[in-house]
């Protein structure tokens, strides 16, 4: 790859000025995508690289029912945060199901949100046809090996997947991105941050060149909410999702009062499924309702031979996590008395209930949490 100028930024303003004033400049944070695509794949060729890792954007702070996460907080730092364990367990589960500890120690939350696709054709510069890398050149994936590609938000122009686990939970929670530009700050809900490829797969989000993602706000789940992240993959750990689902439910007397649903492994962007939420809302928890929600979530898919199986797999993934979250009695495996933060390995399916306000445990066992959830019923506000 070509040589580049390395600059370590000392403050946010100078970092934004350095990149926004130079169309060949790019930011460098944890590097797990950027360094890979620059040094190893030759896909990115910045002439100037602005290292932002020493900017003061690392903190994780709670303000009422919102968790503000600095863009440079690492995946590992967020995964081990006490408030996340108590009030955002399906964020923790998604994080711990991602990558490896080494990568989570490097990768930042901002970088996770802005990660580039794993599409092998995008990452292989010897492949000519890639509308994301070379607009107008075509798409090699639609006639290629496309098992790890998207079926929702996809088209004949691009089927590249957004492979984040974390962002599936974040779009379900209506997290908000805070953005610093050269002249002004702005805030964008994550559900409006990503752009489906359409005929411009090179445009992935609403960020303009030089704008810097500085933080995200994550609304905490109300106490009593049941939430879970289920990831289906080819091996039990250290693997990208074939399909995944992030779900949060508030249940009262067997009826779903409120629901949040998002899908991973299937979307060109982290895929919120409001159609499924509409089916679930006000409905009794049960197999027919869950299947109807899954059919609504995975509607009008764009498939190629390699991805056709993901339509049914995604639906079953959603049904499974809904079943897990609404089981009247937690299964023995989930009631095994795990209590420490680390003793909740991200094996699927995981399900947790946010403990009631004032709960003292750092991380309740699923059995205790379910008891609390059934007894307490849905309480608190749902933004």
């Amino acid at each position, binding site marked *: 790859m070509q040589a580049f100028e390395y600059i*370590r930024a000392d403050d946010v303003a100078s970092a934004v000025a350095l990149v926004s004033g130079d169309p060949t400049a790019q930011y460098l944070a944890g590097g797990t995508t950027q360094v890979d695509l620059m040094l190893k794949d030759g896909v990115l060729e910045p002439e100037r690289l602005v290292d932002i890792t020493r900017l003061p954007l690392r903190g994780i702070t709670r303000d009422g029912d919102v968790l503000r996460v600095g863009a440079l907080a690492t995946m590992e730092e967020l995964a081990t945060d006490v408030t996340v364990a108590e009030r955002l367990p399906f964020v923790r589960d998604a994080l711990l199901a991602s990558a490896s*500890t080494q990568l989570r120690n490097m990768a930042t939350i901002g970088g996770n949100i802005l990660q580039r696709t794993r599409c092998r054709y995008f990452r292989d510069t010897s492949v000519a046809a890639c509308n994301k890398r070379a607009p107008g050149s075509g798409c090699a994936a639609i006639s290629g090996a496309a098992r790890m590609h998207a079926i929702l938000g996809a088209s004949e122009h691009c089927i590249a997947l957004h492979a984040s686990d974390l962002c599936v939970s974040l779009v379900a929670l209506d997290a908000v991105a805070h953005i610093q530009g050269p002249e002004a700050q702005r805030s964008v809900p994550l559900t409006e941050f990503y752009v489906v490829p359409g005929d411009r797969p090179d445009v992935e989000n609403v960020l303009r060149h030089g704008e810097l993602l500085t933080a995200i706000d994550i609304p905490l789940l109300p106490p009593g909410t049941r939430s879970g992240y289920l990831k289906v993959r080819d091996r039990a750990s250290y693997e990208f999702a074939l399909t995944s689902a992030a779900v949060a439910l508030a249940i009262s007397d067997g009826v779903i009062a409120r629901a949040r649903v998002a899908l991973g492994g299937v979307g060109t962007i982290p895929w919120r499924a409001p159609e499924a939420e509409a089916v679930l809302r006000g409905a009794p928890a049960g197999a027919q309702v869950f299947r109807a929600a899954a059919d609504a979530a995975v509607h009008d898919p764009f498939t190629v031979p390699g991805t056709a199986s993901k339509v049914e797999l995604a639906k079953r993934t959603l049904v499974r996590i809904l079943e897990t979250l609404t089981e009247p009695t937690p299964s023995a495996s989930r009631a095994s008395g795990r209590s420490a933060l680390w003793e909740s390995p991200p094996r699927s399916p995981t399900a947790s209930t946010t403990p009631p306000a004032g709960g003292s445990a750092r991380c309740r066992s699923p059995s205790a949490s379910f008891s609390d959830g059934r007894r307490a019923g849905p309480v608190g506000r749902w933004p």
Partner: protein
Amino acid sequence: MSETTRGASTEVDLTLRVNGSARRLRIDSRTTLLDALRDRLELTGTKKGCDQGACGACTILVDGKRVLSCLTLAAQCDGREVTTIEGLSRDGGLHPVQEAFIRHDGFQCGYCTPGQIMSAVALLAEGRAGSDEEIREFMSGNICRCGAYPNIVAAIREAAGRDAGV
């Protein structure tokens, strides 16, 4: 604009604190920490496997946390504390995790072993060796193509002070 390393130079001056010693280097900005350690500082204990963040062979500690040196730019580590497999021994003796790997035959060809051991040292510090299941989950970023996993788990279990598998 605040003070930054301006100028269109593609070379970077930095100081790495490697295994307790300050090492000054001038490097091409493209140099990974892995290549700086192996090619410039002649610390070849850290291995280059996939060189793309998939295998874990290049695992080292930066400021006490395990990271992949193949995806880390050396320039980013100016002033950081870097610990490699060469830095584990004390007074000429092996680290308890190294001894446990030998005792349990936690390797075959040995190429992934420095990365496995660095990862295991960090895993113990993280408090994630509470069960064999937990060890397997949190060691999953280190691939062993010889398949020495059962013995690696046994070595870590012993180093964690647990005698029998759970």
